């Protein structure tokens, strides 16, 4: 298509006499071609001059000012969306950290026997009842880890190898899984802090290995026996 034909099309498009499909293509070409754009503007100018419209309007850069105003008008609308995303992420991270911290605290209290009455009772129930049920099923003092796996098959864990034992361990495992599953909403620093808290709590509880749990199972049985 020669240049004259394009300019003829431009004139027809200006009058709304070009088929829509051609308008689409030509208007994209105008975006790239400053000469066509200037010509479009002069077509508007000569029509305005013929109709005695205020042709000097454009001298103040009217179209440019509208374009700049639109750009400025649209920019602030995007910013809050960005801030909102950051804010929501921070809020989600804070909530995850708060839930995790509370759970760790409750686990520690339960293990050390220093929690509130209700908290200790609830967690002790979780820890003791499965061990008792395991003893009934196996009819002998089985390691708590094996019994718990039979009774409460744990969901696939992201971070904890199979074989970790104890109700508290399962809760911690679930907690750790929760933290990892929701890691998209927290920062690495927050995750590290929460996981460090978990490890610290394990040390404080002194139930980090199956051997420790097995060694303590007799004591657990005697505790449950005495509670009957």
């Amino acid at each position, binding site marked *: 298509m020669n240049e004259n034909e394009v300019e003829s099309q431009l004139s*027809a*498009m200006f009058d709304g006499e070009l088929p829509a499909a051609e308008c689409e293509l030509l208007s994209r070409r105008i975006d790239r071609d400053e000469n066509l754009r200037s010509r479009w503007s002069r077509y508007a100018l000569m029509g305005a001059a013929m109709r005695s419209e205020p042709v000097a309007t454009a001298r103040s850069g009217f179209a440019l000012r509208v374009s700049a105003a639109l750009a400025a008008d649209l920019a602030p609308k995007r910013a809050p969306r960005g801030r909102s995303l950051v804010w929501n992420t921070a809020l989600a991270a804070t909530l995850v950290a708060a839930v995790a911290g509370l759970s760790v605290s409750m686990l520690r209290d339960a293990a050390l026997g220093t929690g509130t009455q209700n908290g200790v009772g609830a967690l002790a129930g979780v820890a003791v009842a499965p061990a008792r049920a395991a003893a009934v099923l196996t009819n002998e003092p089985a390691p708590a880890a094996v019994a718990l796996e039979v009774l409460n098959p744990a969901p696939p864990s992201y971070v904890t190898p199979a074989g970790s034992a104890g109700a508290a361990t399962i809760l911690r495992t679930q907690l750790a899984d929760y933290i990892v599953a929701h890691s998209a909403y927290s920062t690495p620093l927050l995750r590290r802090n929460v996981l460090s808290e978990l490890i610290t709590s394990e040390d404080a509880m002194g139930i980090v290995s199956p051997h420790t749990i097995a060694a303590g199972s007799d004591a657990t049985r005697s505790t449950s026996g005495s509670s009957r």
Partner: protein
Amino acid sequence: MGPDASDLSLVQRVQRGERSAYDLLVLKYQHKVVKLVMRYLRDPADAEDVAQEAFIKAYRALPQFRGDSAFYTWLYRIAINTAKNALAARDRNPVSYELDMHNGDDSTDMVSRLKDPETPEGLALTEEIRNTVNFAIDALPEDLRTAIVLRELEGLSYEEIALSMDCPVGTVRSRIFRAREAIDRRLREVFDGGLGRAEELV
């Protein structure tokens, strides 16, 4: 094919998020909208501000434009409402308007003067452009002059012009294009003739 076919095409591009298409609509209708607003606000600088606001409002409302009416009809309605609102706001705040008019701020006054098409410079430029266009039209062959006048002054479609001039639509399209080319050559001579200020128009 209606006179709004190309406008609708541009509108659809804007609705798809291509803002550059809206620039062409602004370039096409800026003179008409400013003239329309000046019926309500006599001050040309105020009229330009209100016209600018009208274009911005129209842009924001474009996602809701369904093409039930022609784009320019819809745009004019927005411009008239914006002008009426501006007039009402001015009536509610006559004191601040007076202060704005007499605050003696030279920089504001200069901006206003530069924007004002009715300053001596603006009027001279307007006159120069009108004369150039009129001389160019007078110099056109009869068939080209008739075609461009029927189109620009009477607002007839190509089909209506073809009926009026008893020729094919393709011929009308060609005549209007050739008329515009002839006028455009004269305009560019004005722009290139050392009148740098005229270049700012396009």
